[in-house]
């Protein structure tokens, strides 16, 4: 019980730091790309968060009140549960489930449900368009993500994330299964609807699913997105970059560094690449990415054969 509580508090701490980290890296990239208004990466996140916190709330004419209120909270919760699955070092695994990979696979469609609800429940046109559009994305990257993660489970002979890390003691999966990480990066951008895969909250819908919300509800929504991206990056680092493995430095330091590398890559792609058309992405996901995921799986399988 005590161990559970300590682990839970640890995850909460990582969650808080993660949100801050995403804000910092995102602003740092913006500054590097020539955005003059991004502000000081270290202080500006606090100002923006406070600004959202004190902003008044909004509602719509006839919303699905419960769903609208709960959707951001549930999204944050799902993100936190994803974060909980991450093994930070050999001895520090908050939730070392034997079916961790399956649970991560379950969190993705549940996130899709919650994002859909967020846009749908406002009973407003632009936000609902964002919600429906997102579902086409959420249901498309799901299979890719599952195949890629099964690929890393093959050499580990387990669905446990800590076992996946240990299986990479000889060689990291990023080299053994080179298609895995790039495919998984797209999944990460999709699940947190960031940059090129921001179908839910896009500018051409005046903010999409969050076009009707303001204030603290929006703060939770943004925080949820950030946590989801951190959770995804940490899972990506675990599955492909050898998790806590590394010389000299302690395991969790390696893990943090690797997570930050994946996170920084995802955020950079998010800022540089323009949004796909949903129509086009649907075709790409099924006709290009899914076969690539098959190839990745076969590759992983052949590589793992004794």
């Amino acid at each position, binding site marked *: 019980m005590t161990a559970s509580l300590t682990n839970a508090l640890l995850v909460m701490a990582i969650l808080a730091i993660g949100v801050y980290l995403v804000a910092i890296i995102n602003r740092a*990239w*913006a500054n590097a*790309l*020539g*955005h*003059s*208004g*991004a*502000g000081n990466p270290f*202080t*500006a996140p*606090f*100002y*923006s968060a*406070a*600004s959202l*916190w*004190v*902003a*008044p*709330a*909004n509602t719509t*004419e*006839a919303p699905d009140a419960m769903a609208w209120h709960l959707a951001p909270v549930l999204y944050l919760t799902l993100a936190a549960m994803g974060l909980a699955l991450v093994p930070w070092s050999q001895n520090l695994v908050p939730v070392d489930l034997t079916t961790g990979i399956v649970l991560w696979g379950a969190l993705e469609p549940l996130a899709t449900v919650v994002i859909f609800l967020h846009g749908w429940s406002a009973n407003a*046109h632009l936000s609902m*368009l964002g919600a*429906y*559009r997102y579902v086409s994305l959420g249901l498309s990257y799901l299979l890719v993500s599952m195949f890629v993660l099964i690929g890393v489970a093959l050499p580990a002979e387990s669905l446990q994330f800590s076992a996946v890390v240990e299986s990479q003691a000889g060689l990291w999966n990023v080299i053994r299964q080179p298609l895995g990480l790039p495919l998984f990066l797209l999944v990460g951008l999709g699940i947190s609807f960031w*940059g*090129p895969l*921001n*179908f839910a909250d*896009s*500018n*051409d*819908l*005046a*903010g999409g699913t*969050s*076009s*009707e*919300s*303001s*204030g603290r509800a*929006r703060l939770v929504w943004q925080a949820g997105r950030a946590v989801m991206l951190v959770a995804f990056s940490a899972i990506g680092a675990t599955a492909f970059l050898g998790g806590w493995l590394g010389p000299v430095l302690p395991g969790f330091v390696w893990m943090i560094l690797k997570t930050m590398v994946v996170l920084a890559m995802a955020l950079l792609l998010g*800022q*540089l*690449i*323009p*949004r*796909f*058309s*949903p*129509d*086009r992405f649907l075709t790409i996901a099924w006709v290009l990415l899914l076969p690539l995921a098959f190839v990745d799986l076969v590759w992983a399988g052949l590589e793992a054969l004794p």
Partner: protein
Amino acid sequence: MAMNWLRQLAAKAPVPVYPLLAGNLRTDIQTMGLDPRIEWVASPRHARVLLVAGELSPATDRAFGKVHDQLPGPAASIWWQGQPLDSLADGATILDKADDLGRVAHQLQVDLLSGKHRGEPALCPDEPPEPWQGLGDIGHGGEGMMGGKPYGRSMAMPTDDLRDGLQLDPMAFSLGPFCSFLPPGLEANVTLHGDVVASFEVCSTPYPSLLPGVFEKALEGPVSITELELARARHYLHQLGHALWINQSGTVAHAVFAKARSLKPGESLNKLKKQLIYTGFYRSAGADKGVLGDSQALMTGGVAARACGRGSDARVDDDGYRSLGFKPLVMDRGDAAARWWLWLEEAQRSLQLAHDAGPGHVKTSNTRSVELLRGASRDGQLPEDGTAMLEDLLPGLEWSEAMAVLASLDLSAVQRAGAGAEGTL
């Protein structure tokens, strides 16, 4: 007045401002957004301050009231280049210089957060959209499952679908004139089937764009090609930036606006060009859509026509340009990406021309036929509004593709600055 620490922190954040354009001022707005003390937001729900840019016309009062009231209060407006509405004139914040926006907005944010400014009164009456016609306590519907006006709005009835042999409930609404993702002033009745545009009916055309001063002068007499081309390059970069913003590349768009603010003759845009190619901007949403027909291309003129292979460029009739070896840039794809591509190419070439012309040495010679920012003026005839073609162009497109196509076209009428008085304003 005292603020708690949270509000003090919040006051330091960039002011979230919703730009409400009551004139064709998007370029100015984009430049003003470079101020780190403010941040443009896409929905008034995210804003604390409303910037009213331009002179409101009585025709849009109702629409203005709607957007104004959608800012979660307390919120306040800043008026720029126009008179405040009578009902909001008391204590209105008026901006004289565009550069001051950051300071003024920030001050307003502090006042709003500290409670010194109580927010503006609502303009629309506080009552449900339509009278409730219902049976239950909370306005539940009329007769049957589809009739009535539950919760004060009617429900859709099925109509024939655009593509399927199905009957669908259309999603119908009017958009604009103050949408951040539409050309300023454009008002349209939109019907969607799913997220595909089924019909797009233009109700009021976008605000005419006013010619920059140097183009004004070019219609009167010889002007320096350097100045003219710098203004042109700036304009195309701003258009491109808007398309980038629509396609969710806000950071890149910001960098483009920053570049456009301080263009130098002969500057190279190669880095940007490469970046846009490698990041797939020309393959993003809607890039292969919005191919113009011949008459549409001629109607639009300028870059849009040249992107379809219609090589008309009034600059070939000008001795000044001919002496610089000018040849029109033409493409034959005609889709949205071709226009974006050509905007950047034109901007690059304009910078080159500005360099070749040298400061003030080579001047334009032809005032009867001048290549403007959109299309050409021929014998004093300026390009007219072309938004009617959207009614043919957009139906059948998915929403984000339709918005991208809109962001690749400049269809507003062109007006001389002096002509505003007898125009729509």
